[in-house]
């Protein structure tokens, strides 16, 4: 590996942090009590995880066009996740999926 050790450490740190948030998102998906809470876990934790991972990978990239590619993909996923979260929540409401702790 020709890259300096420091870069490896910093980018590795970002990627580890990213992996942590993916784990947190999965745990939330399994533990949270209803579909609405689970949507929080996925949209927020997983997107932060992907963001941190992207930063770590972008630091290691050889070409700046690769960095921009990674950034574009992240932006797309982030925008898509926000929209999909809204759509799924709305259709759950319309279908009358009960929220946890609510008597309906």
């Amino acid at each position, binding site marked *: *590996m020709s890259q300096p050790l420091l870069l*490896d450490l910093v980018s*590795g740190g970002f*990627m580890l942090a*990213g*992996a942590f948030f*993916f*784990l947190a*998102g*999965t745990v939330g*998906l*399994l533990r949270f009590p209803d*579909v609405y809470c*689970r*949507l929080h876990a*996925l*949209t927020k934790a*997983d*997107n932060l*995880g*992907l963001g941190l*991972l*992207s930063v770590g*990978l972008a630091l*290691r*990239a050889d070409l700046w066009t*690769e960095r921009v*590619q*990674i950034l*574009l*993909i992240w932006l*797309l*996923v982030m925008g*898509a*996740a926000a*929209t*999909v*979260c809204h*759509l*799924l929540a*709305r*259709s*759950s409401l*319309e*279908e*009358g*999926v*009960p929220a946890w702790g609510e008597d*309906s």
Partner: protein
Amino acid sequence: MDDALLLLAAFLALNVAAGLVRVARGPSPADRMVVAQLFGTTGVAILLVLAEAMHAPELRTVALVFALLAVVISVAFVKRGWVRRLGSEPVGGGPGAGGPGAGGHEGEAMEAER
């Protein structure tokens, strides 16, 4: 470092596998659809990591396609309307809802907790 990246990709794949538990449990079709979203985001992450670990920049293009498809799947799910069954009686959403049997496995075990 490349080995560490492969480990990272494997760890992310484990997250996707754990998501399958939610698919099995449901209870609503939306709960299962949330996992499709997990597949999308985590799948993109895995592909980006593999692109770096295996020096295969093409995988970044695959990641892009993956991200786009995840959106299409979810939008299609929401647009189609759910097919909800209470007992054997289909309770359609709006006019966009499919008929009985059109929902496939997603429509089956929607539990109405009331």
